[in-house]
């Protein structure tokens, strides 16, 4: 893999495991994807699918007492992150790769003003004077469209509303011009109208700064409206990857299809009053990740599954147009009605 490729981040065969009382949990089990410069990549899946652990692995934030990256490689601008020293990693985090989390209140320090927190990050990574860093904090708050930014610099996180805190988190994350921004459920804790504002803001800033975004969410609506390419994860594995239009036009993995049919839709034409179509359920439960799964992880819940699905893990098949899917029965899935 060469540095000259357009990819800023290349993840190959990532495996992250946790030791629990019930055995080793294979939270991420061989996930690969690329992130191009300035691109918005979505990672979608239900809870426990390993999407957040993937993000934490990239930043090497897996708690060492219980978890570890057991295999694979993560290359950021050609540099291997899995073996990078902790000091070098610290220089990277918050500077060249930033992250924002679901609950901004827990990721902001409650006893420091927001201006101080942003300025500290700037001083640490850019080595500028405190005064310049303060000025940078003001610019950042202004950039994320916080009204009256000069005054807000001296406020504490609890004085801000939820939406405003998430704006501060974005300002903090972008304060050192990162090449990659990882956003883990950034709008899940927010109200609908505030979610729309934050998503719009993230996209607008991406255009302005050229930062590539990895957007992790369980919400297919958020994925559809903000990302360019999507990775669908299930039980620690990547089951499908496609440009966003292709994925929603023709999902190829039975799991992706199941997900799409399970959500109540707001955008379908109005039905006659009183008529409530049944939602399609995905039968069964997510498999336990403490047991090795020999075949396809979705096979026990899948209507298309055959003996082969249960015995051998399906390879990623290229379905054309950058659409890849890990399914043995993809031809039959494609032939069936959506």
């Amino acid at each position, binding site marked *: 893999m060469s540095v000259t490729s357009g990819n800023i981040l290349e993840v190959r065969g990532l495996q992250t495991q*946790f030791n*629990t*009382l*019930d055995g080793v949990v294979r939270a991420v089990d061989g996930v690969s994807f690329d992130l191009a410069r300035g691109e918005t990549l979505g990672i979608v899946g*239900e*809870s*426990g699918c390993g999407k*957040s652990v993937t993000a934490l692995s990239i930043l090497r934030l897996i708690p060492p007492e*219980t978890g570890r990256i057991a295999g694979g490689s993560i290359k950021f601008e050609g540099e291997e992150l899995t073996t990078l020293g902790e000091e070098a990693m610290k220089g990277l985090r918050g500077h060249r790769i930033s992250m924002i989390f*679901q609950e901004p209140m827990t990721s902001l320090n409650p006893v420091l003003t927001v201006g101080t927190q942003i300025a500290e990050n700037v001083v640490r990574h850019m080595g500028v004077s405190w005064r310049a860093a303060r000025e940078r904090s003001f610019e950042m708050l202004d950039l994320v469209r916080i009204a009256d930014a000069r005054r807000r610099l001296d406020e504490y996180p609890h004085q801000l509303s939820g939406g405003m805190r998430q704006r501060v988190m974005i300002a903090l994350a972008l304060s050192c011009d990162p090449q990659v921004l990882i956003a883990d*459920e950034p709008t*899940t*804790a927010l109200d609908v109208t505030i979610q729309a504002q934050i998503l719009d803001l993230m996209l607008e800033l991406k255009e302005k700064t050229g930062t590539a975004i990895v957007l992790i969410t*369980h919400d297919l609506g958020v994925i559809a409206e903000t990302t360019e390419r999507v990775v669908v994860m299930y039980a620690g594995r990547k089951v499908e990857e496609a440009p966003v239009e292709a994925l929603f036009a023709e999902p190829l993995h039975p799991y992706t299809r199941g997900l799409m049919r399970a959500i109540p839709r707001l955008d379908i034409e109005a039905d006659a009053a009183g008529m409530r179509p049944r939602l399609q359920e995905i039968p069964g*439960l*997510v*498999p*336990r*990740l403490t047991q090795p799964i020999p075949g396809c992880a979705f096979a026990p819940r899948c209507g298309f599954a055959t003996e082969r699905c249960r015995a051998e893990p399906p390879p990623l098949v290229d379905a054309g147009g950058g659409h890849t899917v890990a399914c043995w029965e993809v031809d039959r899935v494609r032939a069936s009605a959506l």
Partner: protein
Amino acid sequence: MAVITDDLALPPRRFSLATAIRRNPTITFGAVLLTALIVVAIFAPYIAYSDPFKIAPVNRLRPPSERWWFGTDQFGRDVFSRTVYGARVSLFVGLTVAAFSSLLGLALGLLCGYFRRVDGIVMRVMDGLMAIPSILLAIALITLTRPGLGIVIVAIIIPEVPRIVRVVRAVVLSIRSQPYIESAIAGGTKNAKLLMRHVLPNALAPLIVQSTYVCASAMLIEAGLSFLGAGVPPEVPSWGNIIAQGRTFFQIAPWTILIPGTFLAITVLAVNLLGDGLRDRLDPRLARRL
């Protein structure tokens, strides 16, 4: 994340003594030590090889030897036998105080936490009681009445109760705001059943932990009171009394103080270890699965 996983539902694990011990070393250590001491206290007449009250001036202040394992005191009484009997007093005081103050504290704490109208009055009374030092209270009580084990126990219980009440009240307040309480009320559960079935069982864990600390502190206070002469009558072999009587001869017969002192320290340690272990085990925030 706020989203709930379906794969978290795990089959119940089979109980195994070996893994239980491995996971809770402090509980095991404290419990084993405490059980051993309780056995010693119960079987004191069989363990002590001589009469702890028998005065033999000929054998005064003998150092530990094959005949007097822990030596003798200034009256020639066998320190080993007295120490073994002393365990009875200490453990009896500790356990009685823990039991009574827990029961009282639990009742008052439940009332205060659940019925807000009683809360203000009872809690102010509790604040007042907490301001009384138990040593002074005990001395006052004993000067008014005859010294005895009962008075000592009462004197220790009175200032310990408010400590339990506070803990139970705080726990009840947090339980009361839990959705399962609202769910039970909506399901038609009446006050008495709500308290007994939904509030009480969930308040027990912190109570047990707190009562172990009360037990340990009661044993220390009893020893302190006996040492000051305000505790159990001087002829009763409590560890505090043994130490108090050996004090004047400390330089020539240090065993009369060191041995009961060590026993007292070990007992308190065992109870506290048990309490700490239980706290870690019973607090869901500390006892996470991972």
